[in-house]
């Protein structure tokens, strides 16, 4: 990281102090630290995970972006790369993992499946995109995205972090935004806890179609 990126423009620093002194804003310093050390959760779901591994391996070497420290525990991770098909059976575990990650935290939907269900969208055990449950920051298209595409997504995330401000980010504010995502329940089908009233009225309506009620 060179000083120019960290320094605020417009401040004259004497030449002999250029390498030791920086004048900057707290936001800039904070974002610089965050974006240069994003630790992804070591968490692979399906085929896309293999490309994620390939991105870390010999040819593509993710370490160049400060993102190679994959943590298997959510407690130490700040980026969840959802790399593959999200199934109904798995989604309670994914939501739990997300809830366990400390803030600030980011979610990346890697590939068609995580973004929308992809080729398996019509499947009965498939959740059509992780954004049905978690707030997604970056979508990376592809089936699977190539390692280059994944890196592009990560660089986009860095750019997004650069624009953040401590006073505005959602995790330092009080209010609904920081509340945990409720863990869905596996019933006769997947039950999204936030939508229970909705489901209830719809089931009642379907069990009792208007035509029947009149009769």
């Amino acid at each position: 990281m060179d000083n120019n990126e960290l320094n605020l423009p417009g401040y004259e620093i004497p030449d002999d102090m250029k390498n030791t002194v920086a004048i900057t804003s707290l936001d800039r310093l904070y974002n610089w630290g965050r974006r240069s050390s994003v630790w992804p959760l070591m968490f692979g779901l399906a085929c896309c995970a293999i490309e994620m591994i390939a991105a870390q391996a010999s040819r593509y070497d993710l370490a160049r972006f400060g993102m190679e420290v994959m943590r298997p525990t959510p407690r130490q991770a700040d980026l969840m790369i959802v790399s593959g098909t999200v199934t109904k059976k798995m989604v309670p575990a994914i939501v739990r993992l997300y809830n366990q990650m400390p803030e600030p935290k980011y979610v990346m939907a890697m590939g068609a499946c995580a973004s929308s269900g992809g080729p398996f969208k019509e499947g009965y055990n498939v959740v059509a995109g992780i954004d049905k449950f978690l707030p997604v920051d970056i979508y990376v298209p592809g089936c699977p995205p190539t390692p280059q595409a994944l890196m592009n997504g990560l660089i986009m995330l860095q750019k997004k972090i650069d624009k953040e401000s401590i006073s505005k980010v959602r995790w330092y504010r009080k209010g609904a935004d920081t509340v945990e995502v409720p863990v869905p329940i596996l019933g006769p089908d997947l039950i999204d806890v936030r939508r229970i009233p909705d489901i209830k009225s719809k089931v009642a309506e379907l069990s009792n179609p208007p035509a029947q009620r009149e009769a």
Partner: protein
Amino acid sequence: MTTPASVSTVDLAARFPGIVSADSRPGYSGWIINADKLIEVATAIRDEFGYDLLSSVTGVDYPADGKMEVVYHAFKTTGGSIFVFKVQMPRDDPVVSSLVPVWKGAELQEREAWDLLGIKFTNHPDLRRILMWEGFEGHPLRKDWKEPFYEEELKPFKSRWPDGKHTIAEAKNPFRDNVQFPVGFDPEKYTFEDPEQALYTSLRKYQSEDKDGIKTDHILVNMGPQHPSTHGVFRAVVMLDGEDIVSLKPVMGYLHRNHEKIGERNTFLQNMPYTDRLDYFNSMSNNFGYALAVEKLMGIQVAERADYIRVIMAELTRIQNHLIWAGMMLNDLGAMYTPALYAFEERELILDIFEATAGSRMMCNYFRFGGVARDMTEDALRKTRELVHDRLPGKVDEMDRLLTDNEVLVSRLKGMGYLSAEDAINTSMTGPMLRASGVPYDIRRADPYSVYDRFEFDVVSRPEGDMYARYLVRIEEMRQSLKILEQALKQIPAGPILSGKPQYQVKIQPGEAYGRVEAPKGELGYYIVSNGKPNPYRYHVRAPSFINLTSLEMLCVGEKIADFVAILGAVDIVLGELDR
């Protein structure tokens, strides 16, 4: 050297008059056994006729006839072609006795048939749902079961892209999501029985007892579905006595992507890219098995050049798989990353060839019925030759040199996770797992397909049956693959790469077929039933990763929990194929 694929001469009907009859439906083969005599006949098939390995068990739903059918495929580990037998039951009460007492390998597969088709197997030791969760509504592979995003029976759907517009699937579902609930369901009052309870009670409990005045008790450990060592979203529930494993159950379905249901709506060709996503390390081998099965049904030949290209691709895939396996195995043993990085370097070079030829690194979607999609260019062939002659042999030797005599590796692998030949056969192991238990069974030799009968190569097997043997088998197999590649690259003829003309919709006669290949992980089989429509009526994948786990408990009991990670790694599973 090669054993010719012997025509099955077994006359089961003569041996069991009145109990067994030949399957005479046009396009079908094999024998239909009276459901109540299944055990008796199956025992005879195993002991008298010598079909000692039960490869695949699956069900087919025939609502038009009011029948449910279970289809079994078995083979002899001494070679020869596959043997088919079936039982039929009334659809409204499909009950048949479990084959677990005869072949333990039926265990997981019967659970799958129960889960997806609702076939009850009496005397099954642990009949629970396997891919879906306990409490899920319905049996999805039944023909009258419809998924929430159901549009039509068969693709292509008429609604796709009418007047250049499309509606998202959510808009058509009353819940605006991929869900459906039974009539009268009340989510507020819903109290679910703990779905894990049945699972936990199925484990053999270590009894607490008073030993020398000290109270001991079992510990239950859940590993996964999110665990760095389970190669994806696999879960194992382990019962421990201190550090020793006393009982273990694999739990799966966390990546169940409904491959078969989607496959039965797709047209035959539409399934090809889906097979890529089964074992996503080895899309070429997956394509291979599927193409073979459909070609059998169509009764067509494969263009000769295409056959060679297929072999080249399949063998490159095998090398790449085994290299990654070795790297990951070392990861599991704690040598984090370095060996895996060596493996990935070579894998990238092989993927370059795939990308140059098929257009994609991983999801190749390369095979077509009767041939392959694109020709291998001279440039790609040259690159392959360079790899096969100049680079890979040295790299395999390097792996060998770095790892094989490594003190840590040897002491962690030798003598661990033992599986006898008898148990391996009984639990339907295939591939390197079977060969490492001293059974030299390789489909490329035992029941040759494509042009494998033209190549000289050895079937690698080791008698030890431990993890070290599994490691050695795979290292040696890479050398044999290189040997095959050398010959294939020398012999590859010029000519067309497709036997017919390219077509989107293929004509297929009613009937059934089972195509199988020696995939890097074991026998990859496709069972396909056609009813003459452009879509498969039944489409089943016999996945080696899945069935090889039947023996997991056997391998682990008595070992330490720390070794479980390595034992699982040595089986070589991929979740896409395991859960499908």
